[in-house]
């Protein structure tokens, strides 16, 4: 038995030694390879594209680029593991997945303000101030924002056929309540259709407020409040009006009766939904048509507005374990400044992966093996070629929306949750329990007070106190 044990140990050591050897051999004196984790399904043609890019990179920054494609569904888990286990890599996408604040808080990303100052000071100017402000944590920066449309207004989307059939003048709507007569007509004449799908919850009614902590929608600040007083959203008049309205619509039959157990993206829902609220970006109508198979028109309901949360959706972070952060930063600078390089990474090699139609437009070649559709992960999306079929001024319109947007006073505010972690966890659980308030399927008069009480018991006032304290400190 002892011999057997010894043999096994030896085997184990040999295996690991063998593994180690092959890794060290590759990276001794050669040009370093930057590893970039991307949440994008594998692109077969990536090798060819990267080869072309690396020709330039080797000369300009002294490094090569390797992209590791991770399935979007697995990306969060994978990056969590990578960071938790100290895996060596250089860049990774962070934003709506692989949450930036969490990554910074748990020590997965590297501080790069000094590196940017040293290696690529021009980068500061290539990205809007408010974006930089948003990602500042403790006076330092841990990622580079990828510019895209941030200030998306909320809009109401309505089935074009229905609008025409019932002659609903949607353009004249001033707020969401004015859609009611239309919903009524739908209910009367189209019994199989779902007049309104409450996916966005009470959002369309509370457009005057902004969320402070991502995912925690019940603590808000009024957009035009200079003092930034923390308010319980569920106690505001707008909220109460909103949930009551949703309740009315539910009872009147505008919202499907089984909304609480239904999946809003299943085949039936997509087929039968007549109207719903969502974020708006220029050109989104074409995308909606692809998703739902029908034409939808959109009517904006809120003003464009920029918050930290919106700017933190698409970033590229530098890993704490990166051995070449200087080269990584340089790479990002190139991608933000060099249109040709950026578009190669976004769309591939001209003629092989896409056809260039004119200065602005391009058309991807089907089944070419490279079509990652990740403009917003590689750099400034406004530098990207426009896909054929979109309107010429999509980027201009988007940029306008960004620049003309009012900016939140809380841009760059990061709530340090250390002292109230328990209360936040408990309150988050309560929020999940009462989500039905926002789809009209529960009686508001009895449920809302219960909701309020439960949040009280879970410690929401403690959170508010701490939050207000930190906000006051921030806006000084």
């Amino acid at each position, binding site marked *: 038995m002892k011999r057997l044990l010894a043999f096994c140990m030896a085997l*184990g050591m040999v*295996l*690991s030694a063998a*593994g*180690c050897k092959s*890794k060290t051999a590759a990276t001794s004196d050669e040009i370093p390879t930057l590893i970039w984790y991307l949440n994008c*399904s*594998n692109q077969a043609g990536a090798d060819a594209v990267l080869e072309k890019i690396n020709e330039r990179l080797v000369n300009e920054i002294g490094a090569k680029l390797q992209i*590791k494609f*991770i*399935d*979007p*569904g*697995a990306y969060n*888990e*994978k990056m969590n*593991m990578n960071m*938790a*286990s*100290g*895996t060596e890599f250089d860049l990774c996408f962070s934003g709506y997945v692989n949450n930036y604040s969490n990554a910074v808080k748990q020590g997965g990303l590297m501080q790069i303000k000094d590196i940017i100052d040293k290696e690529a000071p021009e980068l500061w100017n290539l990205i809007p101030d408010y974006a930089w402000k948003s990602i500042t944590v403790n006076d330092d920066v841990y990622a580079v924002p990828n510019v895209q449309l941030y200030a998306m207004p909320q809009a109401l989307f309505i089935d074009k056929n229905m609008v025409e059939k019932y002659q609903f003048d949607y353009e004249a709507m001033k707020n969401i309540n004015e859609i009611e007569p239309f919903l009524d007509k739908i209910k009367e004449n189209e019994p199989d259709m779902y007049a309104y799908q409450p996916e966005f919850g009470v959002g369309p009614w509370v457009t005057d407020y902004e969320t402070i902590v991502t995912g925690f929608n019940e603590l808000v600040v009024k957009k035009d409040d200079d003092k930034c007083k923390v308010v319980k959203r569920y106690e505001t008049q707008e909220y109460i009006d909103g949930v009551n309205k949703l309740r009315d619509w539910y009872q009147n039959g505008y919202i499907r009766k089984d909304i609480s157990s239904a999946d809003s*993206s*299943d*085949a*039936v829902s*997509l*087929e*039968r939904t007549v109207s719903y609220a969502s974020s708006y970006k220029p050109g*989104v109508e074409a*995308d*909606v*048509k*692809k*998703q*739902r*198979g029908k034409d939808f028109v959109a009517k904006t309901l809120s003003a464009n507005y920029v918050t930290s949360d919106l700017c933190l959706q698409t970033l590229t972070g530098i890993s704490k374990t990166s051995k070449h952060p200087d080269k990584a930063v340089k790479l990002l600078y190139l991608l933000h400044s060099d249109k040709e390089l950026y578009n190669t990474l976004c769309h591939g090699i001209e003629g092989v992966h896409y056809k260039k139609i004119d200065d602005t437009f391009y*058309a*991807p070649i*089907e089944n070419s093996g490279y*079509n*990652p*559709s990740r403009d917003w992960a590689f750099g400034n999306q406004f530098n990207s070629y426009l*896909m054929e079929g979109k309107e010429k001024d999509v980027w201009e319109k988007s940029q306008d929306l960004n620049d003309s947007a009012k900016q939140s006073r809380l841009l760059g505010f990061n709530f340090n949750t250390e002292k109230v972690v328990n209360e936040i966890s408990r309150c988050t659980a309560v929020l999940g329990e009462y989500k039905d308030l926002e789809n009209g399927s529960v009686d508001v008069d009895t449920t809302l007070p219960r909701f309020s009480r439960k949040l009280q018991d879970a410690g929401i006032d403690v959170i508010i106190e701490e939050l207000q304290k930190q906000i006051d400190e921030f806006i000084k």
Partner: protein
Amino acid sequence: MLYSKRQKLSQALLILFFVILCTLIIYPFLLLVGVSLSSEKAIGQYGYQLIPKEWSLASYKYVFENPSAILNAYKVTAIFSVTAMVLSVLLMAMMAFPLTRKEVRARRALSFFLYFTMLFSGGLVPTYILITKYLHLNDTIWVYILPSLISPWYVFMIRTFFQDLPEEIFESVRLDGGTSYTIFFRFVIPLSKPVLATVALLIFLGKWNDWYTALLYIEDESLMSLQYLLQRIMQNLKLLQSLEGSASMVSTEKIPSETVRMAMAVVVAGPALVVFPFFQKYFVKGLTVGSVKG
């Protein structure tokens, strides 16, 4: 053998009972197949139907769009499932047997040693670090096999069976000069065909359906397991369907999604069902002690 009327009746009742039971059990499965063979539009209009209102193979076409990837996944999954099954059953039987022998004084301690790991675990992160940083098993086929070779649950199950084997067999082997090795390999294993076949089947099924291992440890496309590959297809579908990924598709056809989900489930489950009868032949009614005594 002549069956009395009463026996025939009870047999008939038995069969009726199982027919009803199986119909209930299989109903969701039939629904699955039905949805997978339907067109997406029909699902949108009528919901799930047992018999499709509109037949369509579009979902299967979508799943098999890249047949080489799926076929490769079948191959890889079959290889590691079978390997794991064989190694695992053998090693776990080897683990279980000493736990039944009185000579092994440490058997209580060993049982506890084994069981403790069922409840307490260091968690995903240390295991991940061990497997990737120290053992470098990631992106190899061994990561599917090695870490899960010994499952305490099955070891205890096998141990229970071994305990029920009659002691006379062992005594007679000893008298003939056999060692524990002889007892184990020549008698215990053959006599335990039912339980070993059951465990082998369960291990095989577990491995066949494994998608989590690939998610964490595999980046190499050619080593993806079947279930994981299919989950990916599903994720990409969802993505294409959502507004985010739609920029990439040139065609304006609506993408089949629910039907594809069901088609995938059929694609994975199908082969495993075919395999099951192979195991059934080991479920042989127990050998009598008499046959060994002779």
